[in-house]
């Protein structure tokens, strides 16, 4: 097989996409960010700087609620910045929580956003407060390096509260992988932490990435069965922990997952990862590096819509990948080991780990930590963080675990949970607790419809339908995104909605309950009335016709309501 190298890093940068040229000329991700920060006439930075800013974990956004109003007011859009913390595995200490909480209230919009990749986002930071925010994070040893951009992103890790020792082991690997794959440029330190440039500034060696970094974002997740909370099949690179006799033997390696797609562009599609082989724990970091380098060398750098690793895998085939990685490692991946997933949702409330520590999983609707009239969530968590001696874990479903509570501290935490009514959150309906929405409006520049602000209302309506058909206790995975990019991993949900226009969504059915199957589009570009009209009889049939234990996603396929999607390339078929 001859290898087509016309679109990858082997080509002169002039033949590649504009972003490639930008990266190459950026002096290792510096560009004119500093100049942009200093420009007092605008709250924003240059378009080029905006692209580079992503590598520093931040996006320039604007409050879209105000866009039109401000245009008429002869004001520029309300530019503000989103900052995403790099938090491998979603684990953070109470003092870190307190700092983030303080920064959110001082410089951001007074909320913290727990993301689908287990980290925090600040929204609404003004340009002039960016350095202060990042320096504040630095005080508690947090950063936002490579939280976005064409690099390896935040590394996910199952939160599994029960298997404490195992979690610790896997988490350490996730963290080591994240550290190992960090870019080496000191741009972040110079720009944000205002550290003096050292010799070679702007020309730092990037041994893993090279001067143009990756063709596109790259995502890694570690999962501990039987929970597939990290949706490992949606990761570019996944590690499925294989535990035999209570001992971590190693990991099955998965490659080529991804969600992002675009409407009316059949060349783009979500794809579930393939299991490529098995490796030992001490081989993880090395394998991760080599997989990243394969994508660096072969990923499409001409068309950014076709630049994710999933397309590299589909275009060249899994066997090619296995050979390629073997040649780089000098050894072949072993045969994958068996494993079983049962769910991808979180379990709420108290759980005890095998080390005797306690963990309390809270339901945080769509990950938004804030104070409302009904629930003083942000205040409650601040109060808890002030006395908590364990850690916090952010779940891949935008929820939160107050983790590693000693037996002796449990009563105190419990009384705070009750005092602030946090226990009420875990008693919300199962449908709601299994729902997830991306951020979308008003901050996300790509949103075409509401998501975080709308899904709760739609769920209320669906709850009613479910209850009417005696399904109040039946979990169904429901996910919504404001656009087809798929930030809430909608294409593996049993019911999914992706935004098309204000109030209008595509509706998908048939995803696998534990993330093992893609769903398929049922309705295109419809509003709430049609959504409810269509879903109600399907839910009614599910109530009547399901076989015991049958998941909704499986039922709609068996009942012929939707055709099963066998692989990514079949998604648009």
């Amino acid at each position, binding site marked *: 097989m001859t290898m087509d190298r016309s679109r990858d890093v082997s080509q002169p940068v002039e033949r590649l996409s504009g972003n490639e040229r930008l990266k190459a000329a950026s002096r290792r991700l510096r560009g004119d960010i500093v100049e942009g920060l200093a420009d007092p006439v605008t709250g924003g930075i240059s378009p080029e700087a905006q692209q580079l800013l992503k590598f520093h974990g931040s996006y320039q956004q604007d409050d879209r609620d105000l866009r039109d109003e401000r245009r008429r*007011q002869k*004001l520029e859009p309300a530019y503000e910045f989103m900052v995403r913390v790099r938090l491998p595995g979603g684990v953070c200490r109470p003092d870190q929580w307190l700092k983030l909480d303080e920064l959110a209230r001082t410089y951001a919009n007074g909320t913290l956003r727990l993301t689908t990749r287990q980290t925090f986002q600040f929204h609404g930071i*003004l340009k002039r407060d960016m350095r202060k925010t990042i320096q504040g994070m630095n005080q508690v040893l947090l950063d936002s390096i490579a939280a976005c951009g064409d690099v390896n992103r935040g590394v996910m890790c199952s939160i599994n509260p029960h298997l404490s020792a195992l979690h610790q082991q896997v988490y350490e690997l996730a963290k080591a992988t994240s550290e190992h794959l960090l870019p080496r440029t000191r741009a972040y330190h110079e720009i944000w932490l205002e550290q003096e440039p050292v010799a070679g500034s702007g020309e730092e060696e990037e041994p893993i990435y090279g001067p143009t970094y990756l063709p596109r974002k790259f995502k890694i997740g570690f999962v501990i069965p039987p929970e597939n909370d990290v949706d490992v099949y949606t990761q570019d690179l996944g590690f499925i922990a294989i535990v035999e006799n209570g001992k971590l033997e190693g990991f099955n390696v998965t490659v080529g997952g991804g969600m992002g797609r675009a409407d009316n562009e059949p060349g783009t599609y979500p794809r579930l990862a393939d299991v490529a082989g098995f490796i030992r724990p001490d081989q993880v970091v090395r394998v991760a590096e080599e997989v990243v380098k394969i994508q660096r060398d072969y990923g499409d750098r001409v068309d950014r819509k076709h630049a994710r690793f999933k397309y590299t895998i589909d275009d060249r085939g899994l066997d090619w990948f296995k050979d390629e990685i073997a040649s780089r490692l000098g050894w072949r991946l072993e045969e994958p080991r068996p494993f079983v997933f049962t769910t991808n949702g979180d379990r709420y409330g108290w759980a005890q780990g095998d080390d005797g520590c306690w963990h309390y999983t809270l339901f945080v609707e769509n990950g938004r930590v804030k104070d409302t009239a009904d629930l003083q969530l942000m205040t409650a968590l601040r109060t808890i963080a002030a006395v908590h001696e364990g850690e916090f874990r952010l779940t891949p479903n935008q929820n939160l675990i107050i983790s590693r509570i000693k037996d002796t501290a449990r009563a105190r935490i419990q009384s705070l949970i009750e005092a602030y009514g946090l226990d009420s959150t875990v008693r919300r309906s199962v449908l709601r607790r299994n729902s997830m929405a991306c951020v979308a409006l008003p901050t996300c520049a790509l949103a075409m419809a509401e998501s975080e602000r709308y899904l709760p209302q739609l769920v209320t309506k669906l709850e009613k339908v479910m209850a009417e058909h005696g399904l109040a206790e039946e979990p169904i995975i429901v996910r919504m995104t404001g656009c087809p990019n798929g930030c809430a991993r909608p294409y593996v949900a049993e019911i999914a909605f992706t935004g098309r226009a204000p109030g209008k969504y595509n509706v998908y059915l048939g995803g696998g309950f534990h993330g093992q199957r893609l769903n398929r589009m049922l309705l295109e570009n419809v509003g709430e009335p049609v959504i409810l009209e269509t879903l109600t009889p399907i839910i009614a049939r599910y109530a009547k016709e399901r076989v015991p234990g049958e998941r909704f996603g499986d039922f709609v396929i068996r009942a012929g309501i939707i055709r099963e999607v066998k692989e990514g390339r079949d998604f648009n078929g």
Partner: protein
Amino acid sequence: MAVVHCIPGKQPLLVTKPDASSQTWTGPLSPEQAAQLEALVGTLTAEQALWVSGYLAGYNARARVAAPATAVVPTAQPVTILYASETGNAASLAKKLNERAKAKGLATKLLDIADYRVKDLKGERFLVVVTSTQGEGEPPTSAADFYEFLHGRKAPRLEGLKFAVLGLGDSTYEHFCQTGKDIDTRLEALGAVRMVERVDCDVDYEAPATGWIDRLLDQLVRELPPAEAKIVAFPHVAAPAVAAEPLYDRTNPFQATVLENLRLTGRGSSKEIRHVEISLEGSGLTYEPGDSLGILPQNDPELVGELIASLGLEGRPDLQEALGRDYEITTLTGRFLAGWAELSGAKALKELVADPAAQKAWLHGREIIDVVSAFPVPGIDAATFTGLLRKLPPRLYSLASSQAANPDEAHIVVSTVRYDSHGRSRKGVASTMLADRVRPDDTLPVYINANRHFRLPTDPDAPIVMIGAGTGVAPYRAFMQEREERGAKGRSWLFFGERNFRTDFLYQVEWQRWLKDGVLSRIDLAFSRDQAEKVYVQHRLLERAAELWAWLEEGAHLYLCGDAEQLAPDVHAALLRIVAEQSGRGPEQAAEYLKTLQREGRYQRDVY
């Protein structure tokens, strides 16, 4: 004798029949004489024409009375009328006086006090000064030189001079009509003789000013009987120094349609600043950048209702209308307080009236409604009440548009006045009318208030430095529009300040565009509340001292617009420091430097 209509310098002399038939008519002159006269008049400046007209009139009068054998050129000693005005009120009264004086056959010379050569003072015989007071009891900028000269060591003795002063002010200011008082006192101290008592006009100045003009004219006619005076007999000669009167003015406003009325400050702002566009279509009104728009406001009907109720005068639609439209029903004056103390017999009020310092403190944040409801006067009749009120004065707003760029439109920027005091929510009359009650398609009574002391340099290549905060940015938007429209090449530099960048950067996208297109060369911004320490425009000026000085030395014109109380003195102090430090001048010479700039029209201020 013939009536000569003459607009010197512009048009040829037309000698026409009084019945306005189109046929040229030379009257008693031979065609040759007429041609000579026409040739002469065609070369005259405005002032010369006026002088010649006086000369001929005097010649004629003398010939009738004394029939001298030879024609002597009389030393014309017209009545010199000076006005010192910031917003045009004093100017318009001076013009009115001038016209009526001419109609009475008096020779007059009307001048903006800024254009008056102080060394002429010694030779004057009749001097009339109409002046407003600005700042905290200070003279209008245009009168600075005159005022200083008059009060300085070099002021001449003025024994031969007869004078009269009309003061304009606002009785809610501590130093009411101070400049009028100062000039009046000083002229007397220099030996001049007062013809009529000075009058200190409040904001409803029309009636007292008219009374004063009547008395002055009577006195002038007595002093200068037409028979022996050097008197003009051409009542129809247009006052040449004065531009053609606009069709519409403060007493006869144009009913303009509102085109746009929106909030400029973004959501979350602590300020409510609005952008209002009106149509001047069909009005014939013209303006230049630097002028302002006068608006005749109306009172809040709710407040009117409340006031009527607390007076116990309900059920009087005429009163409702009058209080809504004609009278100032918010601002408390000393006169009102005194009158009400009398009517109510309230001891507390009487004590306040007797103690000016206490009164001043008490008045702060209080309005008529507070007095009327706290000290009721049962059975009061409407006329007694309105008798204590002032007329509702128009409000001025700097034009934020260039007519060259927006023919038929006028834009203004209005900061809405709202505050709470003494348990009530207060609303600025005009600004909240615009904010709360005026919508697009409504009409607003407006006029143009020219301000020739705030003008772009005539040289389009001259650099300009524009300093303003808040609504003070308005004229600079007009400047930029004008310079862009005219393709002016001069460099420009804006210093702008407000509270918060995100919400209060007025016309942000326009400045960004002008900056990008090079119409604006530089911009420095001061947002006072975006950081712990307060930063204002004067701080930015100081930061840029060296460059600013370089600009000044290269001939830049300096403009300052906005708040009179805080901004203006602070910026002025910063400028003094910059000049002193950058040029090595002492404080006095620095002040002199700025004064020279001011005199040359290179440092212009529009503060309110």
